[in-house]
């Protein structure tokens, strides 16, 4: 078949909000994903695109969201387009209504599209969610050979290492993630995988 037809809501989520449309459809010319959630959910996690250099266009398909870009809030009902051309801008979006779906399209100007390590991070997180920490850490190590600065992969690798009792490796991975993305400290504080080394984690990310 030379084409694929899907309903966005039928694309399974990886994690609580994320639909990996690009991987699901096999898109190779640009990045495209979707996030879905209900009132109060942070469905676009705070991040910037410094590592990828991506321009990003967000399209609110359903519901109602509130975006925050570099600390400035923007109301975004269904049909709103939010284009962030500055890869360094910090951005996030929270659903204000149930059944809010945001389509995200991204790529770097002047370069052929290359997949972001973000997608790999979701792959590693799925091992964590399944309790298969050994396989998750092994896969993360493979990915980090190609994307050594991908902080979400580093973070999930740290979770795997902590679950496997590899304290030093976990702390080293977590510190590398934290240096690249300071919000890792807040995320790690709520992550049960680090409970066995909580004191060390708190000290390392202080």
């Amino acid at each position, binding site marked *: 078949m030379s084409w694929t037809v899907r309903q*966005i809501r039928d694309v399974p989520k990886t994690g609580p909000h994320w639909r990996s449309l690009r991987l699901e459809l096999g898109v190779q010319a*640009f990045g*495209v994903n979707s996030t879905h959630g209900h009132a109060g959910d942070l469905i676009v996690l705070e991040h910037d695109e410094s590592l990828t250099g991506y321009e990003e266009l967000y399209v609110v398909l359903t519901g109602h969201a509130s975006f925050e*870009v570099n600390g400035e809030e923007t109301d975004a009902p269904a*049909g709103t387009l939010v284009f962030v051309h500055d890869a360094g801008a910090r951005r996030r979006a929270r659903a204000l209504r149930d059944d809010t779906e945001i389509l995200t*399209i991204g*790529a770097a100007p002047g370069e052929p599209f290359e997949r972001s390590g973000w997608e790999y991070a979701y792959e590693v997180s799925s091992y964590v969610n399944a309790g298969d920490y050994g396989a998750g850490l092994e896969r993360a190590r493979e990915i980090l050979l190609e994307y050594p600065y991908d902080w979400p992969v580093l973070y999930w690798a740290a979770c795997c290492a902590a679950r496997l009792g590899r304290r030093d490796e976990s702390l080293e991975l977590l510190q590398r993630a934290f240096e690249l993305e300071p919000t890792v400290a807040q995320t790690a504080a709520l992550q049960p995988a680090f409970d066995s080394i909580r004191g060390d984690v708190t000290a390392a990310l202080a």
Partner: protein
Amino acid sequence: MSYETAHLSELESIPVGDRGLVWRPIRSRFDIRAFGVNAYTAEPGNEVVEEHTEETYGHEEMYVVVSGRATFTLNGEEVDAPAGTIVHLPDPSVRRTAVARDPGTTVLAVGGKRGEAFEPSAWELFFRAGKLPPEEAVRLLEESAAYDKETASFQYNLACYRALAGDRDGALEAFRRAFELSPDRVRGWAPGDSDLDSIRAEVDAVLA
């Protein structure tokens, strides 16, 4: 400002062709440089995606039905597409079109070429030029700086608008350049194109 926002309903509305298609430019509105993206709107029975292939630009395309309902026709096969449907077309040669079924149907189109950096395509200019008087269309094409003018399609369209505007010499110059750039494609476009009637004898001589 590191970001910009707009609502789909606020985008410019540019009628294209004679089948009720309305182009809502997004890429040019935000000056997006990394991928192609635009929206199209139509009322029931009208075209919401014009019939075409992507062979000229080699683009992989993805359509998202944002609101309403459309019927896509892909290589002759019909596909029902209510709001929330994604139609992904990795193969540029697939002939594609869509007709709106519900009032206010809006379809988002995203495109780019695999393995290559995105470049804005001059069809955006041709869509804008379509409803203008020929003299204004010529000026729009000649003064544009954001698109690659050294393509057969650009020079061919320039030739057409110059011919319609009565600039025979300019039309022939652009036509010859288009033919140099892609003889096969120009041979496919020119024979039945009434835009070139005023320079038909010269066109036939180039094609001979």
